[in-house]
């Protein structure tokens, strides 16, 4: 068989498909011939350049973002050294340590985004993401910012209502919503069946029954293209308006129902109070066509002709319907989770399974459901027992810097999976703990949110501490909602994977640590006995947790999805 040519070897090398023997050959050819060396350089350079402008993961922004995180993590190490040197009085070493004045959060990534946004490397392929600035800085600042300071924009929320309840909904539109989602003007809510209740910030409540199509116009007005809706309008929300193609219904503090059949008619029923009907296109000071009082109902056709309806309706059907359906959904959802939970606790891979089903509200022990022994029970310090994902389910509320669950897990592991149902109520700290080991020694795992709502995992002692963060998962609009987060360190592959509500977030990223993982003494929702100050030592979580799972092994996508789906309170 002929020996491979230089070109073949080089193209195999660039395709990451070359064996050791052929690499030896390639190395020898390069060593012996300057022209081949030049070819090698040119080809590698072009291949790398293409990878950097084509792949998100290799972009300049992503590189800068990760470097930001690294520098921040390194600065933490040096904070610790500083304290040690302070105590030991070794002043000579200070100059070395001072060099680790922590870099300002995201300065690097932001500068790269600015520079490259100007056309240096990105924008060739569609669908790129801009690197979010990393919010892990230890608080210092570069003395001379080399670029114009990037002032983060104040968050703006243009939403006008939230989804208060979603029951048995089959969505037909492009958007699918969950309880707690906010909606903004120009959004369209479209459902084939089921019930959706919207709570407007001005005070009105609108319940929609599918099949229906509703468009949000502004904080006080919606357009009902089709379907049935019921509105409850308290005094502060007077003037709330429902438009249909046949009429405009202005509510003056009342309860009414409206049914829109496109191209045929609109029916309006007043259950309590007073509503006024106008031409659909009339101005605010236009002529009123009808005024309807409690018990009255009218049908308006496409020509605008109105006919009184004789059926006398005195109660809103939707509330009762919603309550019944929602109660049924809650019961079924909780039972579904209970059945799964009973089976799941027998999974031999489980190290810890805290389901936060407290026998009483004063207990200070969190039972590990995965074992009959009490060795892995958690000690609840502070915190308040409260309601979890379902009204019947328990959870622990973490609020103060003292609130935490302490536990100890012995042994070492090749891979670990961490998963939790949490309700984030605020990202008050630079870093918010989900699980932090007391120390940061070789193989110890840290799992936390940063202030941008990015979920991060790292392993102590990995060569040059490397954090792996997601994009921001929790923002202002998601505070107070139950979410499921999971992260996997896969020791076999030396990678980290993150999950949000059952779905993989971002790419599987390399984290080169080939030792064994350890937990030892650790805490949920806080950080016990941090060894150094000034490195965001206060990391208490602000929110609730009602399930925590620690597994010896790396769960796959389908298994994480199952945990989410069986535990989703909105199903």
């Amino acid at each position, binding site marked *: 068989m002929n020996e491979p040519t230089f070109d073949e070897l080089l*193209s195999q090398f660039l395709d990451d498909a070359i064996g050791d023997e052929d690499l030896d050959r390639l*190395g020898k050819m*390069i060593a012996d011939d300057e022209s081949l060396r030049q070819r090698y350089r040119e080809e590698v*350079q072009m291949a790398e350049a*293409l990878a950097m402008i084509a792949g998100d993961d290799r972009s*300049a922004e992503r*590189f800068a973002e990760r470097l930001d995180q690294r520098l921040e993590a*390194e600065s933490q190490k040096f904070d610790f050294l500083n304290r040690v040197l302070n105590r030991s009085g070794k002043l000579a070493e200070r100059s070395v340590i001072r060099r680790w004045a922590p870099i300002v959060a995201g300065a690097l990534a932001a500068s790269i985004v600015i520079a490259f946004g100007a056309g240096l490397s990105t924008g060739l392929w569609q669908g790129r993401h801009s690197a979010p600035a990393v919010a892990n800085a230890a608080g210092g600042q570069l003395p001379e910012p080399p670029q114009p300071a990037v002032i983060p924009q104040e968050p703006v929320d243009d939403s006008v209502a939230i989804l208060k309840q979603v029951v048995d909904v089959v969505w037909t539109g492009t958007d699918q919503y969950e309880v707690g989602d906010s909606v903004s003007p120009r959004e369209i809510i479209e459902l084939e069946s089921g019930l959706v209740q919207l709570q407007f910030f001005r005070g009105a409540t609108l319940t929609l029954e599918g099949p229906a199509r509703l468009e949000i116009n502004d904080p006080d007005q919606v357009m009902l293209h089709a379907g049935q809706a019921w509105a409850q309008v308290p005094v502060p929300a007077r003037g709330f308006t429902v438009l249909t193609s046949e009429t405009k219904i202005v509510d003056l503090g009342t309860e009414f129902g409206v049914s829109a059949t496109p191209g045929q008619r609109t029916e309006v029923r007043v259950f309590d109070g007073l509503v006024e009907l106008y031409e659909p296109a009339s101005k605010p000071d236009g002529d009123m066509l009808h005024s309807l009082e409690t018990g009255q109902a009218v049908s308006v056709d496409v020509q605008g002709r109105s006919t009184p309806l004789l059926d006398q309706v005195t109660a809103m059907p939707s509330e009762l319907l919603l309550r019944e359906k929602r109660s049924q959904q809650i019961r079924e959802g909780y039972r579904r989770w209970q059945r799964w939970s009973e089976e799941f606790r027998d999974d031999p891979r489980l190290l810890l399974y805290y389901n936060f089903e407290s026998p009483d509200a004063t207990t200070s022990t969190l039972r590990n459901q995965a074992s009959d022994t009490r060795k892995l029970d958690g000690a609840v310090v502070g915190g308040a027992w409260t309601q979890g994902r379902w009204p019947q389910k328990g959870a622990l509320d973490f609020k103060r810097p003292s609130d935490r669950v302490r536990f100890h897990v012995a042994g070492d592991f090749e891979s670990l999976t961490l998963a939790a149902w949490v309700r984030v109520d605020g990202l008050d700290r630079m870093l918010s703990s989900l699980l932090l080991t007391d120390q940061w020694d070789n193989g110890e795992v840290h799992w936390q949110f940063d202030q941008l709502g990015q979920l991060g995992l790292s392993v102590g002692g990995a060569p040059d501490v490397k954090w792996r963060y997601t994009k921001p998962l929790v923002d202002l609009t998601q505070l107070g909602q139950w979410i499921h987060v999971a992260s996997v360190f896969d020791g076999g592959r030396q990678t980290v994977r993150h999950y949000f509500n059952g779905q993989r977030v971002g790419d599987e990223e390399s984290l080169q640590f080939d030792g064994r993982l350890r937990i030892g003494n650790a805490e949920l929702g806080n950080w016990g006995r941090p060894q150094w100050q000034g490195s965001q030592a206060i990391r208490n979580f602000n929110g609730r947790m009602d399930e925590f799972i620690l597994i010896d092994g790396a769960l796959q996508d389908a298994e994480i999805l199952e945990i989410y789906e069986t535990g989703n309170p909105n199903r």
Partner: protein
Amino acid sequence: MQRGDFTKIVLEHQGRIRTFIRMLGAAPDAVDDLAQDAFVIAYERLEMLEDIDQAGPWLRSIARNLVRNEARKSTRRRRVVNTSLTDVMLGLADEPDSDAWTEEWFAALKVCLEKLPQHGRALVDGRYQQGQNASQLADQTDMTPAAVRQALSRFRGLLRQCVETRFQQAGG
């Protein structure tokens, strides 16, 4: 050197250093980690850099040492693909910074990419945007993996010629 110069250094050199580390024989998935290591060391020792114009050679010397240390590690832990290739590349003298990685160079590369024939663009996208290797690309075409690799090599050559031509025309 002031700490404030560090961002400028990263901006200017991150692409070059990552490529340099790959040329030294680092494993593809370890290149960016090693480059990170190099910049962390650079940040720590920034005061040692007296002239910002010397940042390139200085960063390359840091990268060389890092890759050399990698090559000495046991097979399981090291992040270089093959020590003999790495030894050859480490044994070569340093070279001046190439014209590549400037704003103009990237702008020219983008224009040239747009000019690639459709088939070439599909292969380049598959390899570098979607991260598919030649075997995977071969499955989607009627080519063999070897033919895919050959074609990719040809298109990289075309792109290089195109970029050089544009530079000459621009007097750059």
